């Protein structure tokens, strides 16, 4: 299916591009100036090209520093930025302009954009983007075959007699070797817009993306908490995504409408990841599961597609009132062939798969409409309604599964049935904005949000909100606004064990059997009161001085008397300051402080001791808090020196995040403090440019970056710290380095 769709997609894209090129060629011939006219217009065209050529020098290795830039290894890199441009002089009579621009051409975070247009007629755009994601390079693994879809333990891998955990890996250290966990996205986007007539235009966009590399994941062997062993694996990433957008738009007089389509196809070169079990035999594993015979297999991301048709329309009744509507309907599909229940031939499979693939399908329907009306000269109304339906039509089947490639097939009664979640969401809101006076307005409104779900704990939830705000912009040099919103979500009866029961064959479980504690409430499906404040003041006492303050606060109250998230709140405030004491000097500062807090409660319960669900001394509580401070200071100086040919600037950024998690509990619960999670980043940038003449300049730039991260989940955790999990053991990635660049800019 996917390949057929691909062919169709390619034909559509190619046809559109050929069509656009033909149009352009035709236009070009018709508009080609003749003789003297041509000479005159050529003179009038402006060519503006700029090339910056130089070198970067990075003082130390750091995957973290170069996560998105590609500047990961100590050494020298090429610096190449350029802009080649031709545009018509304003009164030349010419409409054609193009620009070809490139950023970081010497790094693997390069981007090239080519933009060609005949203004008011057509436009073509090419965009090549390369986005690296260098995650970490300090993980170590004994697995062989890295980057492929079959991972094996090295020849000579030994396990101590009778051992079934990481302590028994006799020669682990001998085989550990590093592997870089990174992916590289390369995308090409082609866009074309054509004004077909006075009223019609079309736009087509096509994007092809390759994402290659590896990611870390975990493969498990075993089927319950005591028998499960896991290994951190390196999974291949060989993904391709194709997206196509096509729209035809009509606009004339009072009417606006458009029709179009969106298609997206995801392909994966790898369907599964096989891995050899590194662990010795656990008591209840079947024969042939442990090292060296045992293998595990996990499914990788399945190929899928999404096809959507879109239409929109609007009508301007008069200068005061307009109505718009959007409609989209589509289908998401996925029919990759299933992997077998187990890869391990030693395990007994009594019953075959109920089907060869999931035949997964979700029909989507989205409708929205908006009415905007200027009821009076001072009163505006905006009303919206949205309907969003996801109808999951994936067939439900009982899968008689095998836990972690380690046991014989489950008894039929323990088969699990998939739950194809569907939902319908409706929202509506109405907002009135009253211009009390010039520059002073008040607003107020109501919002409604309704969710209907299946295979969920709550069938229907309903949320009402009201909001109010004021805005002041009465003077040239001051503006301020304040907004408040309160919402109240009410849900139907919460049946905590409903999805759990629905995932088993009817009659298998007792009616009151549950998985989560009966008092558990999932925070996206429970009653909630939310209060939000937002304040903003901007003051411009002079043209050269501005100061702005922004503050916001919100609280989510989920109530007490249940387990789960009980409260979450956050506040943030920012200060912006800008000052230009003289024309050649600019100063700016911004500071932001944010605080996030949440409180949750829970009860420790054990299946082997069901009475624990009633015992309050098993209760425990976790309070989490994040404090985030961000500061930036910048000073820029231009036209310095006798020849006024020097530019100089300094920039400092400081970002500090501290997260605390406090866990406390009843008498039965033993807890100990957790260290804070910290992240401190300091960056200094000093840069200068000297203009040699009108065409060329030299620039120097030095950046000092320093990152310190404290993370208890990674610090001091090696490959065998966890007894039942073989990890990559990568520590946090701090850095303290310099990036120095020197370049020459030339304009021609």
């Amino acid at each position, binding site marked *: 299916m996917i390949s057929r769709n691909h062919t169709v997609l390619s034909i559509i894209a190619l046809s559109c591009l050929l069509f656009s090129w033909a149009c352009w060629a035709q236009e070009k011939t018709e508009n080609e100036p003749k003789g003297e006219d041509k000479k005159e217009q050529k003179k009038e065209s402006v060519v503006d090209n700029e090339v910056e050529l130089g070198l970067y020098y990075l003082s130390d290795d750091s995957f973290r520093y170069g996560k998105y830039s590609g500047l990961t290894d100590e050494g020298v890199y090429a610096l190449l930025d350029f802009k080649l441009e031709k545009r018509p002089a304003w009164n030349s009579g010419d409409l054609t302009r193009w620009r070809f621009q490139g950023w970081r051409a010497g790094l693997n975070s390069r981007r090239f954009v080519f933009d060609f247009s005949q203004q008011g007629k057509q436009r073509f755009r090419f965009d090549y983007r390369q986005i690296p994601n260098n995650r970490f390079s300090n993980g170590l693994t004994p697995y062989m075959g890295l980057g492929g879809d079959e991972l094996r333990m090295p020849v000579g891998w030994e396990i101590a007699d009778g051992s079934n955990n990481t302590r028994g890996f006799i020669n682990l250290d001998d085989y550990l070797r590093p592997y870089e966990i990174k992916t590289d996205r390369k995308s090409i986007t082609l866009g074309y817009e054509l004004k077909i007539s006075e009223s019609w235009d079309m736009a087509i966009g096509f994007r092809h993306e390759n994402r290659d590399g590896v990611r870390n994941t975990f493969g498990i062997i075993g089927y319950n908490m005591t028998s*499960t062993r896991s290994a951190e694996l390196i999974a291949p990433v060989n993904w391709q995504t194709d997206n196509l957008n096509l729209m035809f738009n009509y606009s004339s007089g009072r009417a606006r409408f458009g029709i179009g389509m969106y298609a997206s196809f995801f392909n994966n070169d790898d369907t599964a990841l096989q891995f050899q079990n590194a662990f010795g035999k656990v008591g209840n594993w079947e024969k042939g599961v442990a090292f060296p015979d045992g293998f595990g297999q996990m499914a990788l991301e399945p190929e899928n597609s999404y096809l959507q048709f879109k239409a929109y329309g609007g009508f301007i009744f008069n200068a005061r009132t307009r109505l718009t509507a959007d409609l989209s309907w589509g289908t998401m599909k996925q029919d990759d062939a299933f992997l077998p229940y187990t890869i391990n031939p030693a395990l007994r499979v009594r019953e075959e798969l109920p089907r060869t693939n999931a035949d997964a399908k979700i029909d989507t329907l989205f409708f929205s409409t908006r009415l905007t009306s200027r009821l009076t000269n001072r009163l505006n109304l905006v009303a919206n309604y949205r309907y969003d339906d996801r109808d999951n039509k994936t067939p439900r089947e009982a899968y008689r599964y095998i836990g972690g490639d380690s046991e014989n097939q489950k008894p039929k009664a323990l088969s699990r049935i998939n739950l194809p979640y569907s939902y319908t969401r409706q929202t509506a809101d109405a907002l009135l904005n009253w*211009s009390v006076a010039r520059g002073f307005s008040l607003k107020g409104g109501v919002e409604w949000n309704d969710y209907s779900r299946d295979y969920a704990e709550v069938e229907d939830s309903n949320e009402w909100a009201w909001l109010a705000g004021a805005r002041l912009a009465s003077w040239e040099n001051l503006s301020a606004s304040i907004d408040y919103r309160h919402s109240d979500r009410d849900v139907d009866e919460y049946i905590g064990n409903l999805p759990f029961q629905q995932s088993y064959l009817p009659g298998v479980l007792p009616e009151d059997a549950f998985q989560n504690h009966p008092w558990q409430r999932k925070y996206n499906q429970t009653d909630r009161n939310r209060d939000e404040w937002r304040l903003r003041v901007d003051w411009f006492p002079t043209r050269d001085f501005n100061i702005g303050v922004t503050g916001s606060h919100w609280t989510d109250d989920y109530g007490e008397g249940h387990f789960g998230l009980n409260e979450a709140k956050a506040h943030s405030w920012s200060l912006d300051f800008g000052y230009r004491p003289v024309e050649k000097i600019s100063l700016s500062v911004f500071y932001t402080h944010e605080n996030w807090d949440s409180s949750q409660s829970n009860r420790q319960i054990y299946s082997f001791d069901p009475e624990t669900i009633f015992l309050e001394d098993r209760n425990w509580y976790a309070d989490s808090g994040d404090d985030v401070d961000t500061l930036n200071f910048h000073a820029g100086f231009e036209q310095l020196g006798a020849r006024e040919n020097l530019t100089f600037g300094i920039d400092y950024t400081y970002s500090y995040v501290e997260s605390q998690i406090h866990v406390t509990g009843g008498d039965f619960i033993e807890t100990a403090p957790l260290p804070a999670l910290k992240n401190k980043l300091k960056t200094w940038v000093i840069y200068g440019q000297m203009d040699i003449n009108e065409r060329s300049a030299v620039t120097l730039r030095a950046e000092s970056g320093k990152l310190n991260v404290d993370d208890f989940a990674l610090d001091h955790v090696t490959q065998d710290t966890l007894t039942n999990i073989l990890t990559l053991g990568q520590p946090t990635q701090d850095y303290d380095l310099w990036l120095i660049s020197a370049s020459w800019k030339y304009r021609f």
Partner: protein
Amino acid sequence: MFERPSCLSTIRTMLVLLVYSFFLLAGGTALAAESEPIEAEAEYSRGSRMCLACHGEGRAQAAHEILLSRMAVTADPETPMADDNHGCESCHGPSKAHTRKASDGSRPSPAITFSPGEPAELKNSNCLGCHDNGARFHWMGSMHDIQQTACVDCHDLHVENDPVLAVESQPEVCYTCHAEQRSQFMRQSRHPVQAASQATSHLGLMTCTDCHKPHGSAGEASLVQNTINETCYECHAEKRGPFVFEHQPVREDCSTCHQSHGSNYAPLLNGRGPWLCQQCHNAWNHPSTAYSGTGIPPQGASPQVLASQCLNCHNQVHGSNHPSGPGLTR
């Protein structure tokens, strides 16, 4: 039982009253000082050349660079500078009076100055006179429209390249108002949108408009697609599925677990596992167990607290297509 208000709540109440008082006073002042709307001058001046005589290079409020922009291409009949249009006054309104001083020596302003004190609706109505189609179809009633954002608050027309349309400078324009997002893009786990103005690392690699339509859209938060998930699938199509075994909140809304701009918890999570997962899951045994400092070295080594926490086993948290994967482990 009546409880005495705490000192903090008294301060908070006073602060709220103070803010309200400010708005009432300021609003009253504005109401009292309200004047009749500016009546546009009926006459146009002699055109853009005359305007640029005073607003040319090196002058205060220089606007000459507009001649380098798309707005000034005379061959396009839809631009302000086209022969049949009124040049600068196509946008600024008929402003002949501005070309000469009044009897008291003052110089009347152009009909529309696009200054901060002018109502956004007045300023925008001029822009929408020509740009009320295509990407602006959803402008009326969009979040920026409701917040009374003027087109010129984001767009700079008097320059060759409008900074908000250039990939390398767009985020800085957005941060002017969206300070929280700027801070979020400086966190350790984030999308690669440039947050520090002078850092070279990934300038222009990703921009705000990759996910958002600032002129409004049919979906929430002015996203490029109808829903949050559909927007995320644009670049993360591998998570679209549908999978045979799904995770309910994942199918519904990525932001249930993720913060799209940036987070202190990789990958872009709202919190740290296992506690984030335990906000919804407290099944028998390990999902309901209290995890704390007892699970980290040297006190202990808990697989739920260290490395990738719950994902050490339940790594297929976005959905599994393995017929033996109901626990999202395969």
